[in-house]
């Protein structure tokens, strides 16, 4: 059975298709006012990738900030639930999932059966979010792909005076005018973003490897700094970091316990080695 997950984030719309065993289609496009048409075309694109016909998708679950905007969806689920399901599916011994997206940083913890235990989100303030990094990168004129390269050459990262993302933007403009190097500003911003994630991680119990997902995690410098700051290892999942939440939604659309049934069956046949007993 082919099912789909649609993740409408604050910056991008992601669509993933699954047959219950693997990711068989993924497409991603920027969010815009004509989101309806974007979702339709993304669904079509993924259908072509998976090689299924127009009526081939049996069920769609939406997730993300704008999940309620998806008309085709049967229902919507939280990002934390979807991301943790996908992370558990791909790496069964993961207990902590950190999703660094466009505007929200979500830290979710899983119990040994793969169910979501707690989720912590930066819901009050946009300081240290992806949008903040984007605003700074735009102000210093560095494209997203070059952030890692530029920031890693910094020797003296800038420390922000103001905590607010809006004020920080005007702060860096005056700093750049005063002759501050853009490398130092970028490195300082990365530090601010990573320390925000680390402060959310403080409350999360288990001290094992972290599955780092979301658009910001595609920057190697973010992975490296977060690993340095928390002293924990960053796992890379076998699917695109942006696709994880959408993939989780599509897995959840497979049915109540389909993924768990499959895991249990694998366990019975002794295929993977899992750290717990069922």
């Amino acid at each position, binding site marked *: 059975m082919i099912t789909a997950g649609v993740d409408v984030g604050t910056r991008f719309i992601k669509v993933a298709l699954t047959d219950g065993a693997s990711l068989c289609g993924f497409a991603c496009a920027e969010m815009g006012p004509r989101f309806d048409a974007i979702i339709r075309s993304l669904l079509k694109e993924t259908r072509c990738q998976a090689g299924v016909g127009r009526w081939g998708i049996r069920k769609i679950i939406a997730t993300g900030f704008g999940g309620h905007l998806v008309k085709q969806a049967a229902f919507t689920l939280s990002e934390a639930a979807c991301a943790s399901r996908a992370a558990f599916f791909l790496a069964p011994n993961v207990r902590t999932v950190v999703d660094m997206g466009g505007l929200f940083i979500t830290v979710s913890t899983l119990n040994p059966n793969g169910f979501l235990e707690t989720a912590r989100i930066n819901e009050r*303030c*946009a300081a240290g979010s992806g949008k*903040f990094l984007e605003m700074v990168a735009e102000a210093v004129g560095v494209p997203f792909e070059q952030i890692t390269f530029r920031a890693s050459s910094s020797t003296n990262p800038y420390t922000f005076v103001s905590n607010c*993302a809006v004020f920080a933007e005007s702060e860096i403009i005056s700093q750049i*005018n005063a002759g501050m190097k853009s490398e130092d500003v970028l490195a300082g911003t990365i530090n601010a973003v990573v320390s925000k994630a680390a402060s959310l991680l403080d409350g999360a119990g288990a001290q094992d490897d972290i599955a780092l997902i979301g658009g910001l995690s595609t920057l190697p410098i973010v992975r490296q700094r977060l690993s340095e700051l928390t002293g924990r290892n960053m796992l890379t999942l076998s699917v695109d970091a942006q696709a994880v939440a959408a993939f989780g939604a599509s897995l959840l659309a497979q049915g109540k316990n389909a993924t768990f049934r499959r895991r249990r069956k694998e366990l019975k046949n002794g295929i993977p080695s899992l750290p717990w007993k069922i």
Partner: protein
Amino acid sequence: MIVAGCDVGSLTAKAYIMNEKGGLAGEIIPVQSTPTDSARRVMEKALKSARLNFSDLDVCCSTGYGRYEIPFAQMNMSEISCHGLGAFHVDSGIRTVIDIGGQDCKVILIDANGNVRDFIMNDKCAAGTGRSLEILARTIGVKLEELGRLAVKSKKPINISNKCSIFMELEVLGHLYARKKLKHIACGIADAVAKRVAALAKAIDVEDHVCITGGVSKNPGVVRQLAYHMNRTFKTLPVDPQIIGALGAACFAKKVLEGGGTS
């Protein structure tokens, strides 16, 4: 005796010139590249409209963010004291001043002599300041000057629950995508800013009469919603509410010239 006050804020620079009888000229310009530059430009403009020269000024007092960088000012005072004294000078019945500026927002309590008794200030977060209003106006594609006029047309503001300006932007976009009427969204934006200011004012004992100063006080939508949230009416000032800071600075300069000190 001719005294002047110069208020260099984050978005605009204001200058006010007065003699012993009353005000001579007041000017407002957007900020230039440096505070020094802004101060000189705005003061030149004010002097020109009062038909005076720099040499005619007896004392000039500076205030605002850039107050330490103004070469022609002999003294400086904090903007809190200046807004307090300025509002008291134009209307001696005022006991509370709510100043909503470009990058901060303050509630100032003054005593019967115009001195600051207590104040509370938010300069940590952009929510509840002119900056937030500017960002949200840009999001819906309305000019900042038109936002207030649009907002007062609506009686049903949309509810914006977020506290952070960037999250508010996202929420406003959601309402825009849902094809809500622009006037209701504009009113919701004014309402969101007013809610943050009202939350700040709740932490201090506000006394009658209350007036609003600063750039945002020119937005009728914010003023209406703030009056609603604080359940109070505001006194309208006889002068431009944006220039009160510079006016207060000029009053301090006058006090010093008369030998009374700043208190």
